[in-house]
């Protein structure tokens, strides 16, 4: 913005202010009405939706699928879109950090004098695109199931392992055949053809990358789980 643009803006603003109304009571009245709406909405949500407790946190239990609060869905979904393991840091930290820096520094690279959205096509388009992208990713996150059932035929000796995998919530991040979500974790449909049994066990126990560790599972369940997974070839 050139110095004369700044001067013009300040003069225009001074005139607009002179033609305006005092903050009290006009703006205060609108703000109070809005505050009332906010508190009524919050109380209504509390009464209708409540704040029920889930089961108590238990490192050895496997019946829960990790799910963030809904307004973090869009971040979690970025992980599903960007799949290769070597790119995971870009999805987890890289993209959010870049977006935050771009957002923080916005006034320093968008320095034009124009303020009307219809005359700032690049900024307005970028803004609308960001809203659509975040909305779409949130929608994906909200509709992606957290299935705890696996619908597939397996040999009887792997039935127990299938139940452990389903109960441990592996499908929140992994796909097995037609079941489960496409990422952030790798597809497990043919895991045994790529990864030996020992490596599968190590992964389950360590929890590489963003995956939680399942080393607190009882040994029997761990064995059943590894039997089932190493049968998938």
């Amino acid at each position, binding site marked *: 913005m050139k110095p004369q*643009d*700044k001067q013009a*803006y*300040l003069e*225009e603003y001074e*005139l*607009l202010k*002179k*033609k*305006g*109304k*005092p*903050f*009290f*009571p*006009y703006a205060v*009245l609108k703000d109070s*009405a*809005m505050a009332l709406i*906010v*508190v009524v909405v*919050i*109380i209504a*949500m*509390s009464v209708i939706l409540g*704040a029920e*407790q*889930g*089961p108590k*946190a*238990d*490192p050895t239990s496997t*019946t*829960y699928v*990790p799910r*963030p*609060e809904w*307004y*973090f869905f869009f971040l979690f979904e970025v992980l599903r879109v960007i799949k290769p393991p070597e790119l995971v*840091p870009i999805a*987890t*930290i890289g993209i959010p950090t870049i977006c935050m820096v771009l*957002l*923080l520094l*916005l*006034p*320093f690279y*968008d320095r*034009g*004098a124009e*303020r*009307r*959205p219809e005359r700032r096509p690049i*900024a307005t388009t970028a803004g609308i695109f960001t*809203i659509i992208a975040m909305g779409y990713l949130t929608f994906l996150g909200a509709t992606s199931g957290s299935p705890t059932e696996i619908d597939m035929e397996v040999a009887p000796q792997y039935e127990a392992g299938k139940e452990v995998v389903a109960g441990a919530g592996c499908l929140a991040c992994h796909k097995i055949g037609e079941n489960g979500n496409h990422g952030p974790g790798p597809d497990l449909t043919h895991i045994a053809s790529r990864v030996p049994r020992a490596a599968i066990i190590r992964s389950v126990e360590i*929890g590489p*990358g*963003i*995956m*939680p560790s399942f080393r607190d599972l009882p040994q029997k369940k761990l064995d059943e789980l590894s039997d089932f997974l190493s049968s998938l070839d």
Partner: protein
Amino acid sequence: MPKLRLPKIPDSVVPAPLRKPAKPGRGGLPKGQAPADLKTAPPERQTDVQRLGDKAKDAPADVLAWVDQRTGATGFLTGMLYRKVPKGTNWFYTLGSATLFAFIVQAVTGVFLAMFYTPSATQAYASISHINNEVPLGALVHGMHKWGSSVMVILIFLHMGRTFFFGAYKYPRELNWVIGVVLLILTMTMAFTGYLLPFDQRSFWASIVGININGTGPIVGPYLSDFLRAGPELGATTLSRFYAIHMLLVPGAIIALIGAHMYLVVKLGTTAPPWVRAEKPKVATPVAELDAGVEGNGAGPSNGASAT
């Protein structure tokens, strides 16, 4: 939308600090001139009770004057309350104060929850059950805190959207945009750390994944996740750490930055919608009338008439 119009506020409604009432018996007449009734009937002597009553009447103004002499607060207050907001200010401009109000709801409900919550891995879950089932209105306050966070996040994004599309982050308000983005990040930090506190399965496993996500970051990532986890496994120390961040560190920073944000709002003023112009080009307003309207509430002509 119909324009909001309010009748002119009578003086009696104006907050007391803004005008000190004239003391009885003072003012009104020039020095040395007796009021008319004094000539006919001498005034009754004030009784002690009356004098006390007068003093009591003046007390609020005197106290405020005392405070004002030492702080200059009334000047600031009048400046803040009666500053003009520019022409065209509409309901979109309530989103910022609505976000602030949502934060206040979070702060108040949070204080009440803290009175009953125990930040220990063994007792946290039971203390939340206690709040939900036994504390009077506990379930309501807990629900308000839980859903209030969603409302606050939505409002903060709407407020940011308004600022973005109206170009309100441009000169001279760049710094306030930066403060706002930091407030957004801090609000998300509150959401992340608060999620673990109920210590149920959902919060436990989601926090593990969240901490692991931080751990994949380049260079600082592993240190960050170690710091958050406060140990090899998510457990009691993690909970205390999240509790301290959620209760002390981030709220303190948020309150300080909201103060800075609002100081700049008052100092720089809120923007007008970008399509509003000070002069309407089609309606030709005579300059004299415009000036009169600006200067003296449209009373210009009548003043002129009485002077002649």
